[in-house]
């Protein structure tokens, strides 16, 4: 269903863009191709990683360490991994989805994707050089704390 909506929007936008400006649309394809090229290596790496997790780690182990029984420590761990990992957001969601399917808890998935998108340890030096160290530390630190709270709350609601 979501796929149908996305493809509908894409076809519509592409059509309008083509009608108004052919050259610009071609430029959009070029930009897209550049982004795709950048995303491909980490995506393939994660695909391999997922396969190995599924192949080697039994379901019970995942649901034990990442399930509801893992509690706050599990949420903290997931948030920490999300903060450090440098995975494109678009690939992180299917990754979190696979973990959910394997028995990970909703809290873990929520705090993981939240820190993954909002906290960037890898990009922090860049952020600090542009926006200052204090801003960077507070923004990332607060985002991390809120991701923990949010993860627990999402788990409580769902």
């Amino acid at each position, binding site marked *: 269903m*979501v*796929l149908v909506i*996305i493809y509908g929007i*894409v076809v519509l*936008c*592409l059509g309008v*863009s083509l009608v108004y400006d052919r050259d*610009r*649309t071609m*430029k*959009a*394809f070029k930009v*897209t191709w550049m*982004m*795709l090229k*950048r*995303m491909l*290596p980490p*995506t393939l*790496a*994660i*695909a*391999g990683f*997922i*396969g*190995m997790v*599924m*192949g*080697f780690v039994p379901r019970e182990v995942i649901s034990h360490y990442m399930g509801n029984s893992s509690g706050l420590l599990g949420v903290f761990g997931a948030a920490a991994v999300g903060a450090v990992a440098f995975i*494109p*957001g*678009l*690939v992180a*969601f*299917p990754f*979190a*989805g696979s973990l959910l399917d394997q028995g990970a808890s909703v809290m873990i998935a*929520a705090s993981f*994707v*939240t820190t993954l*998108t*909002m906290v*960037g340890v890898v*990009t922090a030096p*860049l*952020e600090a050089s542009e*926006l*200052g160290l*204090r*801003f960077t530390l*507070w*923004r990332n630190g*607060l*985002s991390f704390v*809120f991701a923990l*709270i*949010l993860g627990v709350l*999402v788990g409580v*609601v*769902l």
Partner: protein
Amino acid sequence: MKEFWKKYWSLPAAVVVFSMVGIIWPGKMVDILPETCNFLLQVILIVPAVLLLMGLFEVWVPRSLVKKQMGSGSGIRGIVLAFVFGTAPTGPLYIAFPIAVALLKKGARVSNVAVFLGAWAAAKVPQIMVEIQFLGPAFAVVRLTMTFIAIVIIGYLVEYFSGPANIRE
């Protein structure tokens, strides 16, 4: 060449690890390969379409427009604008840092800039569609609602703690 390896080191690393696993535990490949292919298939079905949407946005709505519109924003208008531009289908967070700097130089409030970065990171429309697809609508709605609230609170707290004077060089 060095640049190339810096950018794409994860791919050869993955291939090496993957082949080693295949050599040491060939039997396990029966479990691993289908999972890997299944994941790739799911991603391939959705990601190129989303990226094309981002590509189209990039050529039709230049970043200079974002800077121009956000510079004047303050108060509720500023927060709303920060969300609107943050939710646009654009690239990863680090692309937004230079824009954030430009916004600050133009006199945008620190809290609005922090909200802008938060929305850019967490609330992009195509990213939301991907979240719904893979984590379900209930999960996405609950998480995103809380994220929106958190982003605004974080914005004000960042301004309170880091102060406007310390940000600009």
